[in-house]
């Protein structure tokens, strides 16, 4: 502390530097709410499992061994084995990559489409706004999960279409927020200044309005990530998208569902818990990020 202070000119205010101030603010917000720190921890764990999971697991997630099928959790098989004798722990860990991948891809897609369409609608108004609002209203006129089912049924039963369907039903959430935020900033002082400086309208939109909306949209990403995971898992639970023998949490719960009535609880429980923890973590992290980026809405 003293060494750093000694290195600085005495009259320089320490508050001014952007990154340092943000980090200090971040540390304050996280320190104030340990739950946020916990959610970041969960997130780290998920990322680790997604990146290194396949290299770390004790058993081959696809290798079946019918001699040891339906064994309850033990020292050798931490989460037990399924009806084909596959190790559930390995499958749950390996599935992280696919589940996170689907959710992340759909959220990124929804983010790009929704932010661009929404910002343009709020910024330009007029016909752009009318068209975007009409699309948003039409999507919202459906129960969202049902619409996703219809889209996957029509476009074909593949993982890519699961991603696309999830992105489409998430699109209104982004478009609405982006539209509202762009609308507020449409005639803000700095936007007027950018116009007067001779920037073209698209340049003002992309260079001045959009960057100011991005942090809020990032919060939206984290908040909808949990919903995207649930949605994708729900679709694969009813048999869409991911096909056996691939490891994915929704399909694993579906496989275990048949064994619940005969008491083999571990097949469905552990992938279900993984789903729950992932969704829970993203919801908490979304709330935490919102506190960090948008202090006005802090709860």
């Amino acid at each position, binding site marked *: 502390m003293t060494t750093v202070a000694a290195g600085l000119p005495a009259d320089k205010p320490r508050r001014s530097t952007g990154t340092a101030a943000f980090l200090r603010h971040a540390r304050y917000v996280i320190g104030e709410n340990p739950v946020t720190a916990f959610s970041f921890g969960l997130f780290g764990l998920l990322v680790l499992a997604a990146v290194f999971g396949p290299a770390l697991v004790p058993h081959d997630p696809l290798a079946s061994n019918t001699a040891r099928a339906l064994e309850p959790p033990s020292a050798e098989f931490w989460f037990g084995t399924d009806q084909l004798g596959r190790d559930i722990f390995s499958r749950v860990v390996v599935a992280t990559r696919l589940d996170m991948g689907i959710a992340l891809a759909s959220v990124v897609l929804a983010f790009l489409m929704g932010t661009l369409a929404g910002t343009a609608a709020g910024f330009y108004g007029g016909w752009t706004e009318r068209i975007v609002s*009409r699309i948003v*209203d*039409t999507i919202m*006129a*459906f*129960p*969202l*999960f*049902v*619409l996703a*089912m*219809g*889209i996957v*049924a*029509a*476009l*074909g*039963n593949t993982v890519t279409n699961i991603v696309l369907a999830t992105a489409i039903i998430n699109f209104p959430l982004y478009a609405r927020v982006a539209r509202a935020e762009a609308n507020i900033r449409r005639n803000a002082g700095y936007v007027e200044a950018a116009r007067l400086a001779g920037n073209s309208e698209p340049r003002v939109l992309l260079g001045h309005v959009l960057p100011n909306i991005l942090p809020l949209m990032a919060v939206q990403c984290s908040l909808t990530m*949990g919903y995207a995971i*649930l949605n994708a*898992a*729900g679709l694969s*639970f*009813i*048999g*869409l998208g991911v096909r056996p023998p691939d490891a994915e949490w*929704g399909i694993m*719960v*579906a496989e*275990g*569902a048949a064994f*619940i*009535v*005969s*008491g083999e*609880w571990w097949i*469905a*429980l552990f992938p*279900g818990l993984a*789903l*729950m923890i992932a*969704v*829970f973590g993203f*919801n908490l992290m979304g709330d935490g990020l919102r506190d960090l980026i948008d202090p006005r809405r802090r709860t």
Partner: protein
Amino acid sequence: MLQLIAQRLTAAVPGVLGVIVVTFLLSRALPGDPAAYFAGPAATPQAIEEIRQKLGLDRPMWEQFIDYIGDLVRGDLGNSLTTGQPVMQELVTRLPASAELTLLALVVAVLVAVPLGVLAAVKQGSWIDHLSRVVTTAGVSLPTFFTGLLLVYVFYYKLGWAPPPLGRLDIYFSPPDHVTGFYLIDSLIARDLELFVAALGQLILPASTLAVFALAPLARMTRASMLAVLSSDFIRTAKAGGLRSHTVVVTYAFRNAVLPVVTTLGMVFSFLLGANVLVEKVFSWPGIGSYAIESLIASDYAPVQGFVMTMALLYVFLNLLIDVLYGVIDPRVGIDA
């Protein structure tokens, strides 16, 4: 009142149109060539061409769209490939099962969520507030199908309190005479109490599963809305005037807090209708959701389109109902609109 309903009906027209256009586009976006699909894998090019003409797929898009609307008006949603039955008829016979389940779940959710939210707001920071926070977080984070399976394991396998998760009635019972299609109501009409209990027993677990899911947004909104109202001036005045706290909370605060909760119902319905599909699969419930899943697995698309269309129209209708309800609760809405 009638004027209000008429206004809302006109406002719902674009929604219905949007739904029809989207389902039409979805039905034309079937993977590959629909004619080749309907003709089967062994068809000759000539046979495919004949089917294309029969289905009207060789004509321009807008003509097909007009035909599509004509079919809809006549209530023709096509035939299921696997059963050969008209989709419309299947949906109509299966709808009561889904409706009974969803409505019961909604009633349970409202009955639990509203008092929970009110108590959590009145006794902020108490154990009931924490309980409500835990319940709402769990409700948002737990996948419905997973909650359902957990309940089956605990209440059927472990405790043996619930019947097996296999449909609307145990095989030893025969369904009551069809009046409303709701077994709970029909069994009461038939004065068969044993049947009523049996049907209720089958309903409890799937309805609770859905209710846990619907509870979360309702309780959260009730709490937030009550907190906002309780801190307003007229509540302070009512308290200062010496009114009993019961009167203040129920008559003064709750009535004003209920509007945002009614608005949340729209979102809750969207969740419920989607989650319904998953719960029907877990409990082998013979509703329209499991019909859609069976058809999806069999690549039988007409029922899926019919299902999406039915659900969307139901949802538009429910939103309309919420709007009207809103107008009844808050007369100011009718005047502005």
